[in-house]
């Protein structure tokens, strides 16, 4: 592994690298977060002209949509492209690639050690440079910023697992004035040739992220202790998901929920008169819209083991259900029984698609 050190702020340094890649024709497009200078709103952009890089904010603590989900729509790419993804977005994209919703072919992945993203509420109410500065101070010092998403605060996978290029942010005290770019793969080294000073041979310094890792671990324990009153049970589950309006927004924004026609939106769940009559006879009352809890538990079974904990679902929930916290907790437990970590390795098969002959014997009698 090698590292390029630049004498300028991280975001500026990364922007220059993107400029080099695009200008030299090594990539034909760059995919990154942008900020509209006039309206101040963020979006994701696919940029082919160097001039277009001016508005790029590759390291902004913002997740408008999970970029791993958006990237699917133009990957596999016919020509090489450079994409800037947060660690969870990269993992999400790998999970999607496993489901044939994209491919890593022709893609140069750039990621960063991530201090979390600010909640959507915070983002849409406007982010000035003071706010970003405040966030960066926390991030560079290896602290948790109070306005980041709940799942970000509890996220332990903030060091990218398999990016070609990693920008060091967390715990990197001089990241405001210096840019440290790690080249993790041969592809990255090839791409960065001719850019900046000569790279130095050095492995990623894990001591930078240890501080945040332990803070996040403590935060995670706190979060899991609070989810569904800490103990679960039918009453707690109803309490948590009882507010659901049935808008299915959480599954729309979920990078793992890729089904074009969701089972829960299909005719299978169109209820007819006999169903209502039966329910009424049994329970004496009926909740409408029906099947909201069924939807959440069903979705948990379908995808929780692949949940990357990006927190997008909680952010869009109009009823303020902590969807992501529940899914992250349940997902961690379901993934654990298959010794699976979502997005760790593209070669690792989706748990329900494979089996071993000798396993789970303790579950069965």
């Amino acid at each position, binding site marked *: 592994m090698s590292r390029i050190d630049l004498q300028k702020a991280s975001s500026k340094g990364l922007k220059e690298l993107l400029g080099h890649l695009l200008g030299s024709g090594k990539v034909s497009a760059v995919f990154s977060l942008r900020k509209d200078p006039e309206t101040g709103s963020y979006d994701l952009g696919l940029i082919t002209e160097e001039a277009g890089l001016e508005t790029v904010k590759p390291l902004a603590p913002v997740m408008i949509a999970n970029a791993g989900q958006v990237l699917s729509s133009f990957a596999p790419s016919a020509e090489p492209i450079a994409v800037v993804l947060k660690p969870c977005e990269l993992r999400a994209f790998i999970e999607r690639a496993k489901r044939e919703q994209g491919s890593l072919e022709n893609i140069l992945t750039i990621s960063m050690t991530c201090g979390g993203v600010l909640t959507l509420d915070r983002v849409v109410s406007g982010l000035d440079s003071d706010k970003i500065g405040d966030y960066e101070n926390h991030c560079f010092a290896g602290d948790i910023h109070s306005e980041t998403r709940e799942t970000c605060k509890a996220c332990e996978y903030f060091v990218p697992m398999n990016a070609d290029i990693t920008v060091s942010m967390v715990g990197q005290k001089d990241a405001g004035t210096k840019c440290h770019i790690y080249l993790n793969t041969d592809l990255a080294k090839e791409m960065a040739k001719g850019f900046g000073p000569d790279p130095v041979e050095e492995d990623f310094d894990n001591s930078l992220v240890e501080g945040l890792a332990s803070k996040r671990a403590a935060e995670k324990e706190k979060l899991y202790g609070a989810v*569904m009153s800490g*103990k*679960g*049970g*039918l009453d*707690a*589950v*109803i309490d948590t998901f*009882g507010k659901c309006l049935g808008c299915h927004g959480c599954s729309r924004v979920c990078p793992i929920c890729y089904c074009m026609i969701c*089972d829960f939106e299909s005719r*299978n769940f169109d209820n007819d008169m006999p169903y209502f009559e*039966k*329910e009424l006879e*049994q*329970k*004496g*009352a*009926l*909740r409408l819209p*029906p099947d*909201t*809890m*069924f939807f959440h*538990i*069903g979705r*948990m*079974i*379908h995808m*929780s*083991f692949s949940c990357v904990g990006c927190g997008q679902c909680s952010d869009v929930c109009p009823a303020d259900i902590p969807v992501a916290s529940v899914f992250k*907790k*349940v997902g961690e*437990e*379901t993934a654990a*029984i*298959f010794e699976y970590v979502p997005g760790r390795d593209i070669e690792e098969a989706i*748990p*329900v698609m*494979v*089996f071993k*002959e000798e*396993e*789970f014997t303790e*579950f*069965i*009698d």
Partner: protein
Amino acid sequence: MQEKMENQELDQFKPKIVGFLCNWCTYAAADLAGSSKMEIDPALTVIRVMCSSRVDHNLVLTTFFSGADGVLIAGCHPGDCHYGAGNYYARRRYALLKKVMESLGLESERLKLSWISAAEGNRYAEVVNSFSEKIRQLGPNPINKMSGL
């Protein structure tokens, strides 16, 4: 007094258990148990499926949400699947479903997977009877009375 009433209620409780039985092994075992005049708990309602791997999660969830007190999935022993490997996939799905229920604190004991071959009429009767007894002790599925779902 209340205890007595509760006991009475429990005595009257007739559990409803839905059994998804694989056509090639367990369904035949059920047949064998019947024709051998074994005593089998009437709590079980049998649904024949072609393979235990046909039982997708939504079927089990629907069954529970419709008020079943227990769900039994049963198929061929590992290695004996009529289709080669269906029961291995069924086992993974079952483990996943069970874990989600456990994780949410729902009563995962109400769900059971068993391997019963076509020759095991005895075992079929045993499994059904012991599972029914267990469900009887667990009591009715609380979902039955809840309209807030």
